[in-house]
């Protein structure tokens, strides 16, 4: 490989640090107006009256949209839609959009909109919400009986509060109409989803909606499902006949679009005294809204993790008067891992078996749920290499046995897994006779470095230097491709580029394989390759023609290929997953309960690494997320009002620089010929999955105190 596997700086890096990269609300449009969202102050009830007269009279105010004058849509799904009726279903629900000449005029006017409600008692206190069982995978074996019969048992309950994504870039859109053609710059993880949603909303053809999202300032799932604001932004633009920008405030980032649900879990493990797992019952309950069911893979995580013959994983929903949760980085998996991987650590202590050892005793060589082989699984190597790098062999098993002055030292470990997914993806490649290449695919890049890795892949498979390649994404004018979510973009779009390059080669070859005197006369497709700017024979590279000459001689300005890739059917016969082993050192102030995560070693096996540089960044980012989840993040609700209260970055804590110390990453490369031709799995979520559990386990090792309710704040360790 010439480019794949080599470090490459981000191709969009300069644009980002010089401000040339434009985000959703930064696009220059002619004479924009600004929309400001007015939100409900109650969680449940009806709007009795809404008085906009004062606000309307303010200078600069152009229009105020409410449920009374907004366009009503025929909605197919149960997804929340703004300004459709007088019902209030969550606190902070949008109830009006003020449109004015400036943002501040709109915000001021929003303060003067006065609303009277018929208030009903809301229910958000998770301990007192009714549970409904929802779809769960069938039990394996006889989990209840085997648990009862097991000589060693662990039973423990865990909870995780609601968390919000809080990307740097808030939700925002800029929309304008030309006749009945709508253009919208939206902060989105999936432009095609937004396009379909808007076309349906306005009853226009999808082709008449152009959704553009060239740069996304972080999203983490917050922009995966279509939000309600693109519709009201577009509607506002239509109503005032001008481009309209809507940009959330930080506080508004805590409302409406979703969050990681509150999660309560109970894990019951039965084991033999040899450490062999006999039965696991992993029960989870997450909250949802009153109007929509949202479930995630909380209990799916554990099922493939260990060789355990008996397994059950019932899943319950708690209906609450809050907005619907949504996907948040490593959804379900990280929550499930916190419970399962904490419980395994508890078991290790009950059995007095080293936590790494216990995981290896129960190592699953095959998927214990389906019986299928893994397409590849280098988890064992992750554990051995990670442990070595970390220095795990020097660990003393006993809690409170290691210290550094006033600080208790603890070492913990956990496993992470995430599916190696792939989805159908389209790509367009145009290779010009000056040697430059344009690659386009309607996916997005929310920060992991998709612009860069797809450029690398295109360079590799087209045999053309990366500097000559321009990759475009984030635009519905480009071929349809999946949203960026589930860690599948590189595998999906990368496979499309791989396939398209084959088609390009086929076309190029067709210009020269029948020509007398051509060095490639009679050459078969399989015998050729694109490399170093040449179309040539694989086993005799001296027999080749420069790609640009092929085109020039054929008197072609360019060749162009549209290609659609799909996951191979072969995948069905395997379980395809990525794995990681995580090692954490914490120091805990003995008397004050302050926790510092002083060292993390993250060993990951996720197929082929395309760009070690951006991959390392992904892994570090995942660790930092894990630190936040373990130690800091919580959206607190005042249940009397059904209102989220810690809705700004002073009260909702995420790790700051001072919370992040040494993070080392190690990739155990897997040669996986099943997942796709290039052997690509995903990594953006995997890297987070085991971290909160590993930190909690390290805190236990340091202090002897098992904290089962996140986040682990100092008060819980006194």
């Amino acid at each position, binding site marked *: 490989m010439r480019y794949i596997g080599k470090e490459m700086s981000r191709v969009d890096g300069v644009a980002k640090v010089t401000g040339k990269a434009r985000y959703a609300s930064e696009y220059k449009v002619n004479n924009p107006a600004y929309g400001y969202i007015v939100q409900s*102050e109650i969680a449940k009830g009806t709007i009795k009256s809404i008085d906009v007269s004062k606000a309307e009279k303010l200078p600069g105010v152009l229009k105020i949209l409410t449920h009374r004058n907004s366009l009503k849509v025929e909605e197919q799904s149960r997804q929340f839609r703004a300004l459709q009726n007088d019902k209030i279903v969550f606190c902070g629900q949008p109830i009006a959009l003020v449109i004015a000449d400036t943002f*501040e005029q709109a*915000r*001021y006017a929003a*303060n003067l909109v006065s609303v009277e409600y018929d208030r009903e008692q809301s229910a958000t206190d998770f301990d007192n919400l009714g549970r409904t069982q929802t779809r769960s995978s069938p039990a394996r074996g006889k989990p209840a009986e085997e648990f009862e019969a097991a000589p060693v048992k662990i039973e423990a309950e865990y909870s995780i509060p609601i968390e919000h994504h809080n990307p740097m870039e808030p939700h925002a859109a800029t929309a304008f109409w030309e006749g009945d053609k709508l253009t919208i710059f939206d902060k989105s993880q999936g432009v095609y989803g937004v396009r379909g949603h808007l076309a349906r909303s306005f009853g226009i053809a999808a082709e008449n909606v152009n959704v553009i999202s060239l740069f996304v300032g972080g999203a983490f799932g917050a922009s995966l499902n279509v939000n309600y604001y693109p519709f009201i932004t577009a509607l506002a633009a239509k109503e005032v006949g001008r481009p309209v920008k809507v940009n959330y*405030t930080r*506080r508004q980032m805590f409302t409406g679009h979703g969050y990681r649900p509150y999660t309560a879990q109970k894990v019951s493990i039965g084991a033999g005294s040899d450490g062999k797992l006999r039965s696991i019952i992993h029960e989870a309950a997450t909250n949802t809204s009153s109007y929509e069911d949202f479930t995630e893979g909380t209990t799916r995580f554990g099922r493939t993790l260990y060789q355990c013959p008996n397994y059950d994983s019932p899943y319950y929903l708690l209906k609450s008067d809050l907005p619907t949760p949504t996907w948040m980085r490593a959804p379900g998996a990280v929550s499930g891992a916190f419970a399962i991987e904490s419980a395994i650590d508890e078991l290790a202590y009950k059995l007095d078996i080293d936590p790494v050892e216990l995981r290896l005793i129960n190592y699953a060589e095959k998927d214990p749920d389906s019986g299928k082989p893994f397409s590849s699984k280098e988890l064992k190597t992750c554990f051995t290499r990670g442990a070595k790098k970390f220095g795990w062999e020097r660990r003393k098993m006993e809690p409170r046995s290691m210290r550094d002055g*006033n600080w208790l030292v603890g070492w913990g470990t956990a496993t992470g897994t995430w599916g190696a997914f792939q989805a159908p993806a389209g790509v367009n490649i145009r290779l010009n006779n000056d040697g430059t290449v344009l690659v386009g695919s309607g996916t997005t890049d929310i920060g992991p470095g998709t612009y860069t890795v797809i450029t690398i892949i295109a360079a590799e498979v087209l045999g053309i230097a990366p500097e000559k390649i321009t990759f475009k994404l984030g635009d519905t004018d480009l071929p349809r491709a999946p949203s960026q979510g589930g860690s599948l973009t590189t595998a999906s779009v990368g496979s499309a580029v791989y396939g398209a390059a084959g088609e390009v080669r086929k076309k190029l070859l067709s210009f020269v394989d029948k020509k007398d005197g051509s060095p490639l006369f009679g050459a078969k497709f399989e015998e050729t390759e694109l490399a170093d700017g040449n179309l040539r024979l694989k086993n005799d590279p001296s027999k080749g023609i420069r790609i640009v000459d092929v085109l020039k001689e054929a008197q072609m300005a360019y060749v162009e290929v549209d290609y659609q890739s799909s996951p191979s059917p072969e995948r069905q016969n395997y379980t395809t997953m990525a794995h990681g082993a995580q090692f954490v050192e914490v120091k805990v102030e003995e*008397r*004050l*309960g*302050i926790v*510092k995560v002083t060292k993390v070693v993250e060993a990951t096996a996720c197929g082929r690494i395309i760009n070690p540089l951006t991959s390392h960044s992904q892994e570090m980012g995942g660790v930092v997320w894990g630190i936040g989840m373990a*130690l*800091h993040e919580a959206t*607190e609700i*005042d249940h*009397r*009002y059904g*209102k989220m*209260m*810690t809705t*700004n970055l*002073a*009260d909702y*804590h995420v*790790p*700051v*620089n*001072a*919370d992040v110390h040494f993070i080392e990453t190690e990739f155990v490369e897997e040669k996986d010929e099943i997942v796709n031709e290039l052997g690509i799995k995903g990594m953006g979520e995997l890297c987070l999955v085991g971290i909160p559990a590993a930190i909690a386990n390290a805190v236990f090792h340091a202090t002897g105190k098992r904290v089962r309710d996140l986040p682990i*704040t*100092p*008060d819980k360790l*006194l």
Partner: protein
Amino acid sequence: MRPFKFNSASNVRDAVNAVSKNDSAKFIAGGTNLVDLMKEDVERPTELVDVSRIDLRQIRSEGDSIIIGAMAKNTETANHPLVKMNLPLLSQAIFAGASPQIRNMATNGGNLMQRTRCVYFYDTSMPCNKREKGSGCAAKEGLNRMHAIFGWSDECVAVHPSDMCVALAALDAVVRVEGPDGKEGKAREIGFADFHRLPADDPTRDNTLKHGELITAISIPKNRFARNSYYLKVRDRASYAFALVSVAAAAELDGKKINAVRIALGGVAHKPWRASKAESFLKGNEAVAENFEKAAALELEGAKPLGHNEYKVELAKRAIVRALQKAVR
């Protein structure tokens, strides 16, 4: 935000006159607290008078005191050699607060005047006696993990958020203010203990400053604590978070014997809390852990925790002990 008039004052007199004339006018210095509150619609001044350009930035020695100007930035104050050498406790406390960017903007006067971080105070849809007299206190039976364990009333259980002020309380600082009644250049002096107030029946007032009075400087008596002082802040993350509990501790030692000691707590009351019971127990006693623990227990006897902040009682005890240990080390 709501529209407002904006003026810049070039001297104390103009600033005081401008604000005195208008009941809903306010001074603005670094703006790091006030502008946030205006955006949240909590503060609604109709007029802002910028005082940051008034020449009150000096930090100097004056007789038995060190004077820090009200308009000096938090960062330059904490970094100033006079402060670092003579008042390391103050320097540490300032650095424990906020973030570098905020400290670069924040002024000393503004720091004293910053308002509580109670989440209900910030949310105009919630009852809050501090924001709207008589509307009720949502925190008392609500989310009050961050709230007071000392000196609260049924009207308000909020805490003062400043770190700098905890050190100033321990150091017996004096606040110099000039108001509409005073003579030009003649400051009224307010002892630090009397500057901030407990909520009692009027939580709308954080302190005893009158409308139109401008803080011009803070004077700190020179002391012999420089060698043995420590500011300890316990918070939910390593930086950029308000204190769960903080302790400013300073001692003057004669061998093992404590000649003089100062202890103030942050994050526990509506004002920086001077731990006078602990101080009087320790004075004349030996600087050993056992005494620190006794002193801390004595001080916390008077604590009255709320629904979610019981932990602060134990945490404050331990923090007092740890801060004293670090101070006398």
